[in-house]
């Protein structure tokens, strides 16, 4: 169970232990993966990038033994397989760490790592041997450089630490290849650093890592080489120094894509929504005061848990507030429910698209008309025709790619789902729209679309608040950036003064408030 286990594997150090040749998989109408070939050697970190639909998920499914390829071979330690079963994939040492982690919050770290495989004692009594369990888990944590112990409750760990637990689990299963699926997309900066260190530790232990991500900066930092996929084909290999942000983007989209960060068309307008000394339930002592201007995209940066989402929920009437006032165009408002916020034209595009933003089992149409259903009623009953007309219109305006507006929202890709969420609110009369992590898990192309729509909204006189943990996005999109730390606004930066460093400093609570006032709230 130590690093020697890995080196005792049959492959010699620089021979690939996993070789994929000519893997092809089609679905009706789509070639999901075509002639994919790759070698995986011990201790290398391979980036796998591509837009949504490029074939990354299909490849992962094939490696996991969940999907059977139409053609091609998977060679493990020199033995060729036409397809893998789940157990073959496991015994080959392929382990997955998914975006949605599969941990039991109520158990401690050790119990999670060895869940279902706990060491037992007392024969037939079959009692879990806790001591041995912790002794077995701790070495894995040490190897990963974890700063928590095996007896910590998972509920008390941060997201990155939880990922570490998953990786420890993979190690305990003698993984040789750890596939990280979008590991950083929900991590704030500081946490991302930790994860990159873990990857380095894995590499040092001779374990290969496949890093699947949309966050190209991290790919650059973490990966030895990168495979770029587009429409199911490999469109490029980048090696060593050639792994750059621009090179990847160019290959991914097949053209030079300047992520379109449009500048505002006009100066920002007057204040629409004014938040004065608002205190949320989570931070009952921290007061937030901030103004939302017509025509402005206000970025809201900060670490996860800084109180940004709580602020958004308080403004949208989801959570009750502890005190303070909110003025909407000069009139004090107090939204006791989201319904009141909606009728006042204050909308929220929530962070959890699948759980809060959409009803996945409802059709696109029904999702779009849901907040304003009575507008589609003729007499007492809803007019399906009117609903459909609205949905078709939204589909055209927002370029929602779906075979029909009657399909389930759950069947759409992330970017298209987000457009449906947006379409709900655009079909009404927005005055203020709050976006909470609007582009999380969305591919580059759809991202620019969302940015364009946000800018369009702002230009049409809406006040836009964008909560984001993606630094590039915060700096690129926002006209002004407010940074939160422990429930307070720790600083506000104007577009011109926006540097990653400053935002970071404010986010960890080391910013000077003077600086904030200068850039300020004028």
């Amino acid at each position, binding site marked *: 169970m130590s690093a020697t286990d890995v080196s005792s594997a049959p492959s010699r150090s620089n021979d690939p232990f996993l070789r994929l040749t000519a893997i092809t998989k089609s679905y009706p109408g789509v070639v999901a993966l075509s002639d994919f070939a790759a070698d995986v050697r011990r201790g290398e970190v391979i980036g796998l990038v591509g837009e949504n639909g490029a074939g990354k998920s299909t490849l992962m499914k094939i490696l996991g033994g969940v999907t059977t390829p139409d053609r091609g071979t998977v060679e493990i330690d020199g033995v060729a397989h036409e397809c893998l079963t789940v157990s073959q994939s496991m015994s080959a040492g392929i382990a*997955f760490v998914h975006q949605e982690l599969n941990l039991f919050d109520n158990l401690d770290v050790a119990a999670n790592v060895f869940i279902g495989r706990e060491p037992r004692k007392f024969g037939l009594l079959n009692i879990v041997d806790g001591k041995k369990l912790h002794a077995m888990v701790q070495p894995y944590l040490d190897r990963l450089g974890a700063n928590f112990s095996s007896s910590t409750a998972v509920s008390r760990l941060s997201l990155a630490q939880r990922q570490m637990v998953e990786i420890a689990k993979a190690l305990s299963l003698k993984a040789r290849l750890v596939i990280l699926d979008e590991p950083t997309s929900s991590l704030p900066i500081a946490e991302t650093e930790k994860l990159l260190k873990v990857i380095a530790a894995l590499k040092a232990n001779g374990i290969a890592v496949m890093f699947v991500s949309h966050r190209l900066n991290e790919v650059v930092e973490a990966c030895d080489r990168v495979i770029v996929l587009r429409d199911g084909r490999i469109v490029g290999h980048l090696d060593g120094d050639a792994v750059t942000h621009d090179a990847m983007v160019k290959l991914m989209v097949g053209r030079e894509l300047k992520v379109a960060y449009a500048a505002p068309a006009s100066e920002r307008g007057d204040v629409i929504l004014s938040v004065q000394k608002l205190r949320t339930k989570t931070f009952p002592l921290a007061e937030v005061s901030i103004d939302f201007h017509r025509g402005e995209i206000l970025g809201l940066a900060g670490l996860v848990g800084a109180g940004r989402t709580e602020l958004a929920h308080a403004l949208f009437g989801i959570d009750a507030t502890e005190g303070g006032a909110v003025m909407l165009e000069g009139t004090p408002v107090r939204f006791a429910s989201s*319904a009141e916020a909606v009728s006042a034209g204050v909308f929220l595009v929530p962070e959890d698209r699948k759980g809060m933003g959409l009803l996945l089992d409802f059709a696109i149409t029904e999702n779009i008309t849901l907040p304003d259903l009575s507008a589609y009623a003729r007499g007492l009953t809803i007019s399906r025709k009117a609903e459909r007309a609205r949905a078709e219109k939204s589909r055209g305006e927002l370029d929602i790619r779906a075979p029909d507006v009657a399909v389930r929202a759950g069947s759409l890709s992330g970017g298209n789902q987000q457009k449906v969420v947006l379409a709900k609110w655009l079909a009404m009369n927005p005055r203020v729209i709050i976006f909470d992590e609007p582009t999380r898990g969305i591919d580059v192309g759809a991202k620019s679309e969302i940015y364009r729509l946000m800018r369009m909204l702002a230009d049409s006189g809406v006040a836009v608040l964008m909560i984001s943990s993606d630094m590039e996005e915060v700096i690129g999109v926002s006209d002004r950036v407010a940074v939160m730390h422990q429930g307070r606004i720790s600083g506000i930066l104007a577009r011109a003064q926006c540097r990653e460093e400053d935002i970071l400093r404010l986010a960890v609570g080391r910013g000077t408030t003077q600086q904030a006032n200068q850039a300020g709230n004028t």
Partner: protein
Amino acid sequence: MLNLKKDLGLFVLIMVVGTVVALINPRFLSAVNISNTANLVGLFGMFSIGEAFVIITGGIELSVGSMIALLGVIFVDLIASRGVPWPVASFIILAMGILMGLVHGLLITRKRMQPFVVTLCGLLIYRGVARFYTADATAGFPFGVHFEYLEYLTTGRTDIVGLLTDDIHTSIPIPHAFFFMLIVAAVMWVVLHHTVFGRHLYAVGKNEEAARFSGIRTGRVIVAAYAICGVLAAVSSIFLAMYTRSILPSSHGNFYELYAIAAAVLGGFSLRGGEGSIIGVVLGAILLQVLQNLVNLLGIPSSLNFAVSGSVILIGVLADQEYADFRERRERLRRVAAGAASPRPTDDPQTGNGMLAAGARLGDREP
């Protein structure tokens, strides 16, 4: 959301069971038997529809039987002993039903109590109060007391063909309870499947959080569902009181809530909420009555009554799931077979539920 295929399947099942029973015992199709069964379908269908509204929100209402007992004894007491005119008494009973539903709904939404707990307490409380109200005695009408019009409305039967042809031709007399249930079903069908409120019910049942983030007042929707359940239980309590004419508060309406839940489940409702149709629950109520009738007509010991219903529900729900799985597999195979012949460029295999499911499986795996 209209579940036509499921409804059709249930309809076929009723037809098949009916045909088999009729072949073995032709009395099944006798006018008297059909009329009596229809009467029971009407009585039980009404509160089953109410229960269905609660189930759609993902909740449960366990106090229906006790409500029927309590409201029944009060109704009989009001009109028989206290001389309250029956329309006034009916109004009071309906108001009480709504009130009980409102209280349940508010406890569930405002106080965040679990529906099971709230309505279980309702089950115990109303039953106890009903027994106390009559001092555990049977509530009934004194000898010779009649309410002609009320009895005609609730327990009367009309032969429609006879009515139209001045009794030259006759057909099966249809009980008024059944008519009334049909009216309730029709109204509720419109409400559930065609109004804003109905759509909100489904949304809340599917995902309350997402509904709330779409600006729906989820609390109100849920409270309204319990109120509807309460008022329909009250309506059927009047019909049932007039049907039985004497109410033993310790047993009147026992297990009716479970009957209603069974009808809804048979009709394609999911106890997780967000699924089911009015036609489904009505067909479910019909099937349950046909099964009870079958036990009587086929000479099966009546002690096995519940066992038969239970078995059929179990097998029915199981078969339905197996069939759904089978259909899904077949659909997938057909799509693979169809291959590139019918391009569906937007049907992105990368992002559907498949990956989520696969992801969960991959992540969960253990030796």
